[in-house]
C-alpha cells in the first residue's frame, strides 16, 4: 500500500513534468517556425521575466488573479461541481468595486477598501450561488447554468462599462479611475505588484485548512468523491450543491476586485478575459489542492509574461503563449498520461 502511494506520487510528478515539458517544447517549436530571430525570442521568453524588477514583479502580479480563480475552480471541483462561469464572476466582481465606490465615499477611511473588496466577493458568490441554488432546487446542471449566466453577464458588464459608466475624459473603454485611497499599495515598484499577493497567498493557506482540517471541508470532499456515501453517512448533501459554489464565486469575485483595486485602478473592458478559464487549468494542474495552486498559477503566468516580453523585444506575437497554454490544458485534462505512469500499459479491468 505504501508502494502504491509512492507510485502515485511518482506518476503525478512524471505526468506533470511531461506536461510542462511539452508546453515549453511546443512554445519553442512555434518560435522556431514563426520567428525570424528565434534565439533572441527564446531568450526573452525564458529569461525575460527574471531580467529586471519590472518584468519580475509583473510576472508575479499576473499570477495573483490566477491563484484566486484557481482556488475558486478547485473548491468547486473538490465537491465535484463545475463552475464554468469564472469569467463572468471575475468581471462582475470588478464592476462591483466601481459601483460600490460610487456609494462608499473614500471618507469611510480604513473600512472603505475592505468593504469594496468584500462587496465584490459577495457579488461573485451571488452569481455562482445562483447556479448552486438551481442545482439544489431542480438539479439543473451547474456546468451549463454557470456558463450561460456568466456569458450573459459579460455582455451586460461590457455594455455598462462602455455606456453609462464610461469615463468621458478618455478614449479608453473603461470606467473612471477609482478615487485615491481606494487602491492597494504597490509593493515592488516600478512593477504593478501590490498587496493583493498577500491576500491570495493567505487565502490559499486558508482554503487548505478549510478543506483538509475542518468539518465542512471534510463533508465537502466526501460529497465530491462519493455523494451516495455522504448521504448514507448523514451529511446534508443538498447543502453542498450550494456552499462550494458560493465559495467559488466569492473567490472569482475577489480576483476581479483585487485586479481592479490593485493593478488597473479602474474597470477596463474585457480585463477578466482568460482569468476564469485559466483558473480552471491552474486547478487541474494543481489537482485541486489549494497549496499547489500557487506554483501552478506562477507557471501559467510565466508563460504569458515571457511571451509578452518576447513580443515587445522581438517579432513574435502573443498568441504563441496562448497556444502553449492550450497545450497544457489539453495534456492536463487527458487522464491517460497519468494512468500510463501509474499502471503501465496494462489493460484495466
Amino acid at each position, binding site marked *: 500500500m505504501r508502494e502504491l*502511494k509512492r507510485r502515485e506520487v511518482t506518476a503525478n510528478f512524471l505526468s506533470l513534468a511531461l506536461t510542462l515539458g511539452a508546453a515549453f517544447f511546443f512554445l519553442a517549436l512555434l518560435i522556431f517556425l514563426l520567428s525570424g530571430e528565434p534565439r533572441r525570442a527564446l531568450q526573452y521568453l525564458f529569461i525575460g521575466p527574471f531580467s529586471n524588477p519590472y518584468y519580475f514583479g509583473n510576472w508575479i502580479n499576473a499570477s495573483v488573479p490566477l491563484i484566486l480563480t484557481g482556488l475558486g475552480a478547485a473548491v468547486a471541483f473538490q465537491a465535484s461541481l463545475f463552475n464554468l462561469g469564472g469569467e463572468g464572476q471575475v468581471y462582475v466582481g470588478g464592476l462591483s468595486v466601481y459601483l460600490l465606490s460610487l456609494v462608499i465615499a473614500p471618507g469611510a477611511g480604513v473600512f472603505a477598501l475592505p468593504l469594496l473588496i468584500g462587496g465584490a466577493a459577495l457579488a461573485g458568490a451571488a452569481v455562482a450561488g445562483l447556479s448552486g441554488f438551481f442545482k439544489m432546487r431542480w438539479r439543473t446542471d451547474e456546468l451549463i447554468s454557470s456558463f450561460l449566466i456568466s456569458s450573459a453577464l459579460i455582455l451586460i458588464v461590457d455594455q455598462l462599462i462602455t455606456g453609462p459608466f464610461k469615463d468621458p475624459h478618455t478614449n479608453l473603454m473603461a470606467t473612471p479611475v477609482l478615487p485615491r485611497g481606494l487602491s492597494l499599495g504597490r509593493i515592488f515598484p516600478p512593477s504593478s505588484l501590490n498587496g493583493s499577493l498577500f491576500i491570495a497567498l493567505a487565502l490559499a493557506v486558508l482554503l487548505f485548512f478549510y478543506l483538509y482540517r*475542518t*468539518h465542512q471541508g471534510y463533508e465537502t470532499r*466526501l460529497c465530491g468523491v462519493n455523494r*451516495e456515501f455522504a*448521504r448514507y*453517512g*448523514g451529511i446534508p448533501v443538498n447543502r453542498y450543491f450550494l456552499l462550494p459554489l458560493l465559495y467559488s464565486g466569492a473567490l472569482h469575485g475577489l480576483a476581479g476586485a483585487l485586479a481592479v483595486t490593485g493593478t488597473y485602478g479602474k474597470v477596463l473592458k474585457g480585463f477578466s478575459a482568460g482569468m476564469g478559464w485559466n483558473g480552471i487549468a491552474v486547478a487541474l494542474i494543481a489537482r485541486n489542492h489549494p497549496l499547489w495552486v500557487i506554483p501552478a498559477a506562477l507557471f501559467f503566468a510565466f508563460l504569458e509574461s515571457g511571451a509578452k516580453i518576447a513580443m515587445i523585444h522581438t517579432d513574435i506575437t502573443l498568441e504563441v503563449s496562448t497556444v502553449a497554454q492550450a497545450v497544457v490544458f489539453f495534456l492536463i485534462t487527458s487522464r491517460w498520461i497519468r494512468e500510463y505512469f*501509474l499502471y503501465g500499459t496494462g*489493460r484495466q479491468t
Partner: protein
Amino acid sequence: MSLNSESGPPLLEMRGITVIYSHNHLKANDGVDLTVRDGEIHALVGENGAGKTTLMKVLYGLITPQEGEILLEGKIHHFHHPHEAAAEGIGMVPQHFEVIPEFTVTQNIVLGREPRRGILYSPRRAEAAVTKLIKDHGFNLDPRTPASDLSVSQLQQVEILKVLYRKARILILDEPTAVLTEQEIHALFDTLRHLQSLGKTIILITHKLAEVMEISRRVSVMRKGRLEAVRNTEETSRAELSRLMVGREVLFDVAKPPRNTGDPVYAIRRGCVHRRGQVKPLLEDIDLTVHRGEILGITAVAGNGLSELEDAVAGMEPFSSGEVRLRGQDVAHWDSRKLRRAGFAYVPSNRLHRGASLESSVGENLVVADHHGFLNSWGGFHREKTQRFLAERLNAYGVSAPSSVPMGTLSGGNIQRCILARELSHSREFVLFAEPTWGLDIASAEYVYRRLLELRAQGTGILMLSSNLDEIVGLSDTILVLYHGRVVGALDNRIKVDKELVGEYMLGVRDDFAGECHEGA
C-alpha cells in the same frame, strides 16, 4: 454421472499461469496449472481473492498472463482478446448479466454476430437460428420476449444461449447460482447436465460447496493465487474442500444460543413505497416488528422489493405511506440524515459505493456519521481524539491497514470490517444489515456472523435483509419472505425451517401470510 472415459486427452490445459497486477503488484495467479477434461463439469472453488476469476479471465483472453501457456487439445494458444478465445470455442457466462432490456431474447443473443441478408440484418434468420438453438439445448424461452420481462434465471439462460450461439464448447460460469432460488438452482443444474450430455465442457466458478458436491465431476481448489489441490468429487467431502480452501476447519453451523427476546424496538405498519408514474407499488403493506435480542431475517429473489425495503428503512428513499417506529418514535418521514443523528446504524448491501468511499482514506471512512463528535473549538477535527478513536476501532475489528491509506486498497473482507467498526462504534439498540456477507470469503463471513450473534446476545434488535438463504436460515429467529413487494410468508425459525420451503415462498408458490407469526404463533 460420468459420461466420458478417463483416458481421453485433456481438452484444456493451463500451465504455470502467473498474473501479477501492475497497479498493486499482487500475484493474483502464481504458477497455476489447471487441467479440464473433455465433457466434464469441473468446479473451480476458492475464497474471494483466491484467483479464480483472474484465472478464468486469462482463459478467455481478457488478461494476458506474464507467464504460462494455454493448451487446447495439446496445441498452444495465446489469447490477447476475448474474440480470440471465443473463436476457439471458449465462452464466459458472466455473474452480472449483460443484456439490453429493450431487446428481445433473439436480439440479445445475436447481438454482435447478427445473421445478415446482403448487408442488412435479417430478423427472420435470427429468430430461426435462436429458436433452433433454444430447442436443441432444451431451454424453455420465447425468442420474442423482451429481456425486461424475463426473470433472473431466464436472463441467465439468455447469457448461456449467447455463449452457445457463438459455438462455445467450453462454458465458464461465474458464480451462476448466486442470484437463484433453490428451485432455480435445480433447474440450472438440469440444464448443465443436459449440456454436458451434448458434449459441452463446463467450468463452474463457485464457493458453495454443496453445489460442487452435487454437480461437478472434478474439483480444483485455489487458495491465495495457487492451485491447492485437484480432487475427484466422489472421493472428497465438503469438510475436506473447505479445509483446502481456507486452510483450517470451518464451522458450518453457527452455534446460536436460544433467543431471549425483549420489547419491540423497531416496527413498520402498512409500509408502502410508490414511485411516481407507476401503478403497482414497489412495497405494499409491509408489517414487521423487530424485538430486542432478535434477528429478523427478510429474504426475496432479486426484484421483489428487498432493495426497496433497504432504502426505505435506511431513509435513503423513505416510505411513501405507513407508520414506522424506532424506539417508540415515529420516524416514517425521516431521511438518512435525521436517522443518523438519532444513532441509526446501517450496514448497506452496496458496500463499495454506499457503505464506503473507496477514494477516501480509511480514517475518513470511519468517522462519517460520527464526525460531529470530533470537533474542536474552531470547527476543525480534533486530531488526537480522532487518531485515538481510529486506532481503537481498527484494532477492535482486526484491520491491520493504517488509517491513512485509501479504502479502495483494502480487501472486500477488510472493507466490511471497517464498515462494521464504524456502524457498531456505539452500543446500538437497532441495526439494519443488508446482504452482510455478499461476496465475502468464508473466513470473513464467519467473522460477520459472530459479530451479529454478539449483538443479538447484547439485546440489540437486528433487521437482516439477505438473499443468501443459508444465512437467513442459519441466523434468523424469524423469517419473512417478500414476493412482488408483499410479505407472503412468515416463518418461526426456532427450529430451523427447510430451505426448500423458504424457496417456495420466494417463488410465489406459497402465499399464506396472515399477520406476524410471532404474534400469532
